[in-house]
């Protein structure tokens, strides 16, 4: 090959690099065989403790759920996972159609007009929605009532600071408010009054941004039904494993009027000369590769494969399966909360508030409870005091369809012991 290029040595190809910059070698160990590589990686995996699904009662944004085998069977197809962003539509119809279906599924679930192809995670989805509202209204403040996931809040702040947008905790939007951003159910699992929050946003001329749990929408009124302008959320529960926090998938959908402000990829239908329907990237004039510094967002690579997993999951479940999953989770969580409230000294932290399948309990010696459960092989509740000073002794428990009734018995028995 060197001869064909017309050089004597590899180094002749590297002459543009100043010699003072050349290094001798990387300070890294030598390579290993596949067998040795896996041995090393597996030894790291073995130093982690994995709690069984059924004995996991911790949520806080990442949940254990039943993942149909069909999900991995699809996402592990190399035709999907080794393809790039579909720049050449004719050779990428599989990915494009799958994304188009994802957009439709999210739009249906949230009851809004249009969803995009995906974002990195729930937190960046919240931040991107805030940017949309800022540009749309020309206002420089977002108001966050209640318990938004603390990490979403932090990411929102970091994004907003860069753009000169103020993030204010509170319930009262004002004339400077671009959006009211609320989470339904909130970080503690409690339902908020989404309808009146949306109305108060609109009354102030601001947008309403609802951060929602996708499974909850099988039961709960979706953002489109109560008039929210933008829905965002984290799609991990739709067929993705916890994986120490990622990769998961953020989603965003909005009303028609805001479509041109959406960040990232959008796929739409288009037709060829013979009139065959295909799918292609659409409204690219919003995006960085065309608009550069005027783009609606800087996002390029998104979380396509995770969106594919979510699509397979939602298609597998269908409307009835999704409802079944949501209801089973609801009932198990309510059964558990009754039993926990009967423990001496334990009480619901917000007895007047409704919840779906995650709920806060006020308990004596919270941290000790969590440690005790871990000793018994149970990944117990989440101690939310870490983020909220006013929530001392408050632990949130999560139940889903994977926590079978015997698992609930085991949890309660462990707490009683």
């Amino acid at each position, binding site marked *: 090959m060197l001869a064909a290029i017309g050089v004597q040595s590899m180094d002749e*190809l590297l002459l543009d690099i100043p010699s003072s910059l050349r290094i001798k070698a990387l300070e890294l160990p030598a390579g290993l065989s596949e067998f040795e590589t896996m041995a090393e990686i597996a030894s790291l995996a073995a130093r982690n403790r994995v709690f069984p699904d059924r004995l996991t009662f911790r949520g806080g944004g990442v949940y254990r759920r039943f993942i149909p085998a069909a999900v991995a069977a699809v996402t592990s197809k190399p035709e999907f996972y080794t*393809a*790039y962003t579909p720049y050449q*539509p004719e050779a990428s119809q599989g990915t494009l159609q799958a994304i188009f279906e994802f957009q439709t599924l999210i739009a249906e679930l949230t009851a809004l007009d249009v969803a995009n192809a995906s974002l990195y995670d729930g937190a960046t989805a919240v931040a991107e929605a805030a940017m949309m509202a800022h540009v749309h209204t020309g206002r420089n403040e977002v108001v966050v009532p209640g318990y938004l996931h603390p990490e979403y809040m932090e990411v929102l702040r970091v994004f907003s600071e*860069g753009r000169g947008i103020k993030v204010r905790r509170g319930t009262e939007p004002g004339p400077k408010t671009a959006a009211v951003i609320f989470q339904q159910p909130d970080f503690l699992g409690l339902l908020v009054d989404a309808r009146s929050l949306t109305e108060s946003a609109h009354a102030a001329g601001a947008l309403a941004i609802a951060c929602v749990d996708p499974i909850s929408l099988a039961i709960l009124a*979706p953002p489109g039904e109560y008039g929210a302008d933008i829905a965002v959320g984290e799609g991990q529960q739709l067929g993705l494993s916890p994986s*120490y926090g990622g990769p998961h998938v953020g989603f965003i959908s909005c009303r028609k009027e805001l479509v041109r402000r959406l960040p990232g990829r959008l796929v739409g239908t288009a037709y060829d000369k013979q009139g065959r329907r295909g799918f292609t990237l659409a*409204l690219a004039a919003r995006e960085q590769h065309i608009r550069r510094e005027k783009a609606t967002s800087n996002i390029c690579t998104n979380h396509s*494969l995770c969106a594919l997993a979510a699509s397979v999951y939602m298609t597998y479940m269908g409307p009835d399966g999704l409802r079944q999953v949501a209801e089973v989770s609801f009932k198990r969580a309510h059964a558990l909360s009754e039993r926990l409230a009967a423990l001496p000294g334990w009480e619901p932290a917000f007895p007047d508030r409704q919840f779906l399948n995650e709920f806060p309990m006020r308990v004596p010696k919270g941290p000790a409870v969590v440690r005790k459960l871990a000793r018994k092989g149970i990944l117990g509740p989440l101690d939310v005091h870490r983020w909220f000073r006013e929530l001392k002794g408050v632990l949130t428990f999560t139940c889903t369809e994977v926590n079978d009734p015997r698992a*609930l018995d085991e949890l309660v028995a462990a707490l009683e012991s």
Partner: protein
Amino acid sequence: MTEPLSFEKSRGSAGPPRLPDANVTAPEPSQLLGPEHIRSKAPGLPRLSEPEIMRHYSRLASMNYSISEQFYPLGSCTMKYNPVVNETAAALPGFAGLHPYQDEDSVQGALELMWRLERALSAVVGVERVTLQPAAGAHGEWTALRMIQAYHHSRGDARTEVLVPDSAHGTNPASAALSGFHVVEVRSGRDGRISLADLESKLSPSVAALMLTNPNTLGLFERQILDIAEMVHATGAMLYYDGANLNAFMGICRPGDMGFDAVHMNLHKTFTTPHGGGGPGAGPVGVKADLVPFLPTPTVERTNGHLTLDFKRPKSIGRVRTFYGNFGMLVRAYAYIVAMGGDGLTQASRDAVLSANYLRKQVEDDLEMPHDGPCMHEFVASARNLAQDGIKALDIAKALLDRDFYAPTVYFPLVVPEAIMVEPTETESKATLDAFGAAIKEIVAQAKTNPQALHDAPQTLPVGRLDEVAAARRINAYLQGQSDDPVLRWKAAEK
């Protein structure tokens, strides 16, 4: 072949999958929740059986080109083979089953992996520390700019501009704008490198950083990088490295030594995490000592073999996403680095440069080469020489699809008209490169003999060229309320 949408295949009669029953005594949601909370109309998800779903997605898969089946010389994207062992590693229950809010003591292996990956990446790019949190390249760019901004602010220096070359990737100016900077473009010279004179004229005390990739997007090494670094640093600005092109010189040289203060890496390019049809990726950012205090929280620390997450970093810009990054992608990249080792990574880069120069040679008589070689890991050709035959870069791209190759990147970078950007990577054989070179020759010959055939390409795929202009018009009509077809989603016909 086309495949109906899952929504179009949906059968009302397909029952839901069998799922567990609650088997506990508890009220129904409608008994506890107020009616204002209850969904009034079920979401319109499709109803299909598992066999129908599996067939649907298998058919969709068969409509994709991918590295697993095709040569994918997409310039700037480093579409190298993704070792399958990476997938096995990431799927280990000891990783995939970890909850992000487990106690540190119970995730020592995960933290150790992150700690080691940080060290390995630091060694490759020559920096002090690395954050693994950003989810992709663009996210990494923005994270780095936020750190640079915080650094200047901490010194009472409110710099407002970021310089970006005209050959830069679109994410660079977009990330700068998202950080609140004013973007100023720097021109490329005739040799394809940044114009030092233009740079000089744009540097000022308001400039916070110059964003550069090296080799630049033309595949050319910025020979005067040390001078550039000196000029930038002399004005108090920082030098940012867009690591999309890192595959060119692992083990050969390092951005840190060139004077870059912050460096993002695309693990989904250089470090073989699969691209997934558009992500997920991972975009770690490495920084020199001056920027370390500003790294996102948490960082992974190690004392006496015990690993912890450090959230108490008073100068940190804060968190840029949830949890600790795309951990599953970090596992894959680490597996790749362990398997390759320092020797393997170095060889990979040398082979990538060799492949690109070899392929450049194969096609240099057929396409225009706007810049002299040698190139690094990729090269940019131009289809301008075929303009008299009415052939454009896009026609060549589509004709390649018919010859079972994915197309190179076209119309980027913007500084080359009719750009065709080719990055073969090190994992392709000489036979593949030869076949691609032969295909280009054949297409260029066809430009003279039968240009219509090229305009009509592709012919062998599920659809031909799609009318994007008409699609945009239809979207407009929908957004303006003149049409019911949303174009951007499927919608059931009104009954």
